[in-house]
């Protein structure tokens, strides 16, 4: 999942984005009221004026895709309001006046690229006498072309919005005021960077520079015209462009004739077009597209769930009953049935299988319950739904039939679905009656992949796409073998002009051979291994595996994992001995081997921050470095999950190289948001600014956290 510089996504993202723009407003009455202030994006991404940020925050879950273009720079940015008080922005900058490197043989005629990450945190909300105030940092992930810190205040007055900020670094370069912190402490007077000097390692949080050096005020006014689509901006800058990446040698490529910038924004069908005149000499064009991850929804063409007003109840009498139940469970309720225990003499019906279509539990249970109630007579008092994962009973939902039918028939005005069922570990009875035969034998499948990488010297965008062909044999529900072949269909990885970077690396190269692996062959063995997994105690699971475990490593390993049903906390321990695979052929191995393993903890933090999960992996990583990987994920109402992770190990940032430490972001999108039919699949779009060898984990082929996910899911609830 967390790959190197190359980025994996199971399906494409851009083509599908359009559908997300739809929001659900029209379905609610009373929404003619215009609730919100219009937020516009700055050139560098994030809510703001042009060059400068404001204190304003967009709505929770607002995701902006932005593009800005002028003579010296192009900015591609994605800005997400993760919480009402936190905005994060990632940015690729194209410096149009500079070559990517001094060697055309290395990077052709490509111009220089940089990436950066910004954060903005709201300190106070606006009120009668106080402005909205925010504090932020810019450009912490890249080489610091635009690195700055700021404090900003915004105050509205009807259709006007006034902004005033104080900036350090790029935003404060004109030094029009004295640094207030400098008066307090000598060390704040100097930022420690000289003309023409930029950070070469990048990727670090340079805390030692924060709020130091030249300081300037900036600000501006926004005006919403009476014509709703049109608004104007006027901005006063704090930067004097004296230290500019696009004009490193001060040749007059970037000059400032005026400190005032102006712009007009025009909104058309979700697209916000902007035209700006900056520095008294530069025209900037831009477009932003916004959608909201909370409200994104998709129209579905599905069968209506069964009504309780005309139940057939004839399963036991009708010779077609069994056939009909199986079909309707699959097509109306999305439940793939693998075993049915229904006996005329008993008042309990048990079904075994898995939910394939409906990712929300309420909808899934509502449909399953209605389908069962439609088929079985009233003397059946209990429906038991045993959900399987990897052929093993994982969780059992006991539905009280009478209560459920009353709920589904809308008897009374306050019956709730959650009062009609109990989720529990599969009972002894249900386990005993489970016929393991259904979980054995051959299986096969295929899955599409899309690997992409931004900001390479050969070309800005590199991609590879094709299929993983998967097959295996299950000897018992616990023991099996599994193989994955990677078949590349389309790629431009042939543009690679080097395999391994030229840096001296003091730590073992466990991931930086990635280019060698992915370009070796169009068809390759990705994994081939035997595995065992089982429940070894109450809520306790164990697994063992051995073989070619992932693209780059082979070996043996095992895991134990503890996960009660619907518990906020689950944890486990894994240990592996692995040896690096050769990138010259499918089966030979290299000399490097290591022991790697982690204690892992998953904690759903709803009590603290709604819909979030924190995961920790503590242990020894692939390059024998020791430390912790922290992963934080937030789920939005639409089902989209956004997360970030970072690994902190005993490798120093000098040893680590560019990027300073392993970090990455990911967005998991339910395919359901784009399709007209329901589905449970998800596409993962990771973004790893730069991947090196420190803090890298083994991609274990059997992960008990995944296998037991339906016991206490975080992604789909």
């Amino acid at each position, binding site marked *: 999942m967390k790959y190197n510089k190359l980025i994996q996504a199971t399906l494409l993202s851009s083509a599908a984005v359009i559908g997300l723009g739809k929001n659900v407003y029209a379905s609610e009455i009373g929404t003619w*009221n215009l609730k919100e*202030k219009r937020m516009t994006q700055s050139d560098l991404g994030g809510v703001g004026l042009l060059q400068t940020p404001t204190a304003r925050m967009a709505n929770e879950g607002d995701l902006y895709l932005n593009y800005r273009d002028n003579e010296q720079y192009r900015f591609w940015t994605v800005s997400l309001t993760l919480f009402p008080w936190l905005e994060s922005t990632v940015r690729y900058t194209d410096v149009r006046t500079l070559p990517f490197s001094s060697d055309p043989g290395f990077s052709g005629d490509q111009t220089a690229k940089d990436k950066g990450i910004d954060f903005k945190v709201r300190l*106070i909300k606006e009120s*009668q006498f106080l402005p909205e105030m925010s504090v932020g940092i810019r450009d912490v992930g890249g080489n610091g072309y635009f690195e700055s810190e700021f404090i900003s205040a915004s105050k509205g007055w*009807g259709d006007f919005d006034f902004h005033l900020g104080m900036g350090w670094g790029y935003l404060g370069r004109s030094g029009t005021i004295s640094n207030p912190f400098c008066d307090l402490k000598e060390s704040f007077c100097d930022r420690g960077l000289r003309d023409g000097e930029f950070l070469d390692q990048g990727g670090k949080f340079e805390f030692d520079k924060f709020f130091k050096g030249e300081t300037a005020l900036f600000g501006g006014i926004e005006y919403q015209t009476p014509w709703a689509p049109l608004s104007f901006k006027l901005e006063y800058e704090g930067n004097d462009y004296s230290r500019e990446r696009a004009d490193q040698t001060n040749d007059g490529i970037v000059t400032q004739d005026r400190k005032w910038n102006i712009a007009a924004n025009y909104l058309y069908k979700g697209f916000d077009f902007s035209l700006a005149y900056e520095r008294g000499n530069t025209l900037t064009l831009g477009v932003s597209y916004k959608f909201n991850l909370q409200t994104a929804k998709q129209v579905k063409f599905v069968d209506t769930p069964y009504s309780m007003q005309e139940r057939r109840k004839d399963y036991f009498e009708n010779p077609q009953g069994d056939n009909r139940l199986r079909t309707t469970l699959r097509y109306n309720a999305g439940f793939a049935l693998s075993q049915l225990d229904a006996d005329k003499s008993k008042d309990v019906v048990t079904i075994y299988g898995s939910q394939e279509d409906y990712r929300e539990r309420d909808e899934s249970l509502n449909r399953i319950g209605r389908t069962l109630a439609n088929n079985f007579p009233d003397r059946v008092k209990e429906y038991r739904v045993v959900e399987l994962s990897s052929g093993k009973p994982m969780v059992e939902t006991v539905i009280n039939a009478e209560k459920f039918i009353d709920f589904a028939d809308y008897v*009374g005005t306050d019956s709730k679905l959650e009062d009609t069922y109990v989720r529990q570990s599969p009972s002894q009875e249900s386990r005993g009656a489970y016929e393991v035969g259904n979980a054995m034998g051959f299986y096969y499948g295929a899955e599409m992949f899309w690997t992409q990488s931004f900001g390479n010297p050969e070309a800005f965008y590199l991609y590879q796409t094709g299929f993983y062909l998967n097959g295996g044999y299950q000897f018992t529900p616990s023991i099996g073998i599994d193989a994955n072949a990677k078949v590349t269909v389309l790629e431009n990885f042939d543009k690679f002009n080097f395999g391994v970077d030229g840096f001296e690396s003091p730590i073992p190269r466990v991931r930086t051979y990635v280019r060698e692996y992915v370009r070796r062959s169009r068809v390759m063995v990705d994994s081939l291994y035997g595995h065992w997994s089982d429940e070894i105690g109450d809520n306790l699971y164990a697994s063992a595996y051995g073989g070619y475990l992932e693209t780059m490593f082979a070996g043996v390993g095992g895991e134990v994992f503890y996960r009660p049903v619907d518990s906020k906390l689950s944890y486990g321990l894994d240990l592996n001995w692995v040896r690096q695979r050769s990138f010259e052929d499918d089966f030979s191995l290299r000399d490097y081997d290591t022991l790697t393993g982690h204690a892992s903890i998953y904690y759903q933090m709803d009590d603290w921050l709604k819909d979030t999960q924190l995961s920790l992996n503590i242990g020894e990583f692939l390059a024998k470095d020791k430390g912790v990987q922290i992963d934080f994920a937030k789920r939005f109402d639409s089902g989209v999950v956004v997360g970030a992770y970072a690994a902190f190990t005993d490798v120093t940032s000098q040893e680590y190289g560019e990027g300073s430490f392993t970090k990455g972001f990911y967005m998991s999108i339910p395919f359901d948001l784009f399709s007209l039919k329901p589905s449970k699949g998800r596409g993962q779009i990771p973004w790893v600014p730069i991947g090196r060898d420190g803090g890298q984990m083994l991609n274990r082929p059997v992960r008990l956290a995944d296998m037991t996910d339906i016991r206490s899911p975080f992604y789909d609830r």
Partner: protein
Amino acid sequence: MKFLLITILSLFISFFASAKSVTIDINGMKLTYDKAPRLSSVLKQAVKQGDWYWPSSKLFDNKTTEIESERQEIISELKLLLSDSSERQTQVITDLLTQVESWQLMRRISMRIDYDLARIKEQFNPRLIESHYLLRVAARPEIVNVFGTSHALAEMPHLPGAHISVYLQDDDLDCHADSDYVYVITPYGKVDKVNRSYWSNERYELAPGAEVYLPLPESLFSSEVESLNQRIVSLAMHRVK
């Protein structure tokens, strides 16, 4: 003797029968059902009485235990607030307290009550199983109500297309209220928190029959009063009178 026994028995029988029956009061007209009816059949009776404006129709039942205890909690919180308030505030809180105490409450069912919807969609056509209901249907209201931290309940004509601040221009009306926000209970039972201050360009029009709650001044740094305001609004939703 035998006669008496029969009388007692029949009394018993009628007692149990009435316990199972459902009575519904539609604008004063009383209906009794022996078997729990679907909402649509009740609304069918209402439709015979006139042409009603469904967005402002309300259905209440008599499960009031929780609501009454919520009222008592709110009253005690207001009294607590009263004990350490300034003289100016005292009057406002006392007024509010009197209002909350005087409310006649039943439990409002948070669902859209609409004859057309009830006939089309099952989920808007529940079976009514409590023993007593009150259905309020009316023609399209031509007023909006303002209550809360104002001296008296104000009833104002509804102004089509008017921004909410137009209703609140009278300084006497809201000089004790929070200066930035008001709460609106829409006729169909949704609560909106509306920013009506000078620094916002939010545009909000009241629906006919909407109720505006002028809240106690909220603090930026503590959510105590804010949550009390929200509880008062939620309680006000269950007001019959």
